[in-house]
């Protein structure tokens, strides 16, 4: 026996596919299960006082903006580990439109050549 939502439309590629409608129906039902479990739990909570302050090992957070990670640090760890690569790639970013168009043409030529070889 197949569930009725299994019969909904598919988005197929040559090698696979998926049904967004089926996914949405199942995801909505799973959200229902999660909300039900959440509803079992205790819903009340204290407001105000120290328990609502962000945990910062007893220190004061003077400005909520201090809790944010700056956009320039968003991928720190990744950029640090691959810093040699980034240093070289960033050197290519001269800010000149002519350079960007040149790189686009070089990459396009390489792709066309690779396609021809394959």
């Amino acid at each position, binding site marked *: 026996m197949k569930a009725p939502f299994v019969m909904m439309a598919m988005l197929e590629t040559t090698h696979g596919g998926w049904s967004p409608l089926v*996914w949405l129906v199942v995801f909505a039902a*799973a959200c229902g299960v999660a909300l039900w479990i959440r509803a079992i739990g205790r819903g009340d909570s204290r407001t105000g006082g120290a328990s609502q302050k962000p945990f910062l090992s007893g220190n004061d957070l003077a400005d909520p903006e201090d809790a944010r990670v700056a956009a320039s640090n968003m991928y720190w*760890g990744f950029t640090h580990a691959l810093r040699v690569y980034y240093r070289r790639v960033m050197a290519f970013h001269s800010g000149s439109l002519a350079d960007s168009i040149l790189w686009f043409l070089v990459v396009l030529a390489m792709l066309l050549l690779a396609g021809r070889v394959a």
Partner: protein
Amino acid sequence: MADVFYSILCVFGLAFYGIFLGLVFSGVDRMVVARMQSRIGPPLFQPFFDVLKLLNKQDMLPANAVPGIFRMAPVVALAAAVTLLFYLPLGGIGAPVLEGRGDAILALYLLLIPGLAMVIGGFAGGSPYAAIGAQREMVTMISYELPLATVILTFAWKLASLGVAQPFSLGVMAAQPIWGYVGLLGSLGVVILFFVMLLVTPGELGRIPFDSPEAETELAGGILVEYSGRSLALFQLAMAVKTVAMGALMVTLFLPWNVSGWIALPAPVGAVADFLFFLVKVGFLLFFSVSVLRAAMARLRISDVVTGYWKWIGSAAVVGLLLILLDAKG
């Protein structure tokens, strides 16, 4: 009407199947690691007690939090993890419940959603520790996706090269074990991919040595530091379900055999035997990829996580792919 009842039964049944198994595996992991460290450790069902305790605690909302997003992130995480189970072959069930309605690419995206929900919840918490934890989780996710995608693509490519229809289908991957289609060189490639997958799993599950987003000793719980009560319980349940999903994915790709394929058994007995064998395989894989690594290693720095996944584990995955390619050409 019977179809609707079946659908509801499927959702609830799989949700509680995943939650129960995930918490049991978590309990086994804690017991095993305790024994490895010469400790007595908690009882098997301690994760159940932990979740019940959390459900009875207050659910605090931090002063700087974005309430709607902060509250909904754990719900989305658990729902996405449960949804994933519908697309994976689960032991005695054999083919996925939604066989043919979603493939390995969808499974890859669904694996990302619980982590993304944690990232969004962490940023919405308004805490410096949670924000740093969320940033680290994001970087960890970017890191392990490369080797994971390489493993999946290699399997799909191999099946496609054999002329198999729908090579990205997880049901097809389970029905046609790759080991039967490769020679000696290819087998070596599959073994390498197997070890790659064992190392991707702790990253997916946020376990040591890839748990820098939580990092209790430096970030006091990091991404989850502001979560409490039922919201924290939902995140724990999401991770439990994701543990089962990762185990099922590894079994689907590398150890998809069933007992009923070797021994002729009556249908109901065969299904039970297959299911028990599936649990043994999942437990075996999680033992090596989660428990042994957790007991043997310390936490890596976030930059070392990236280096590990992109340079070493990613390179190993590419070597595995190349060996299987060479095997096919030879």
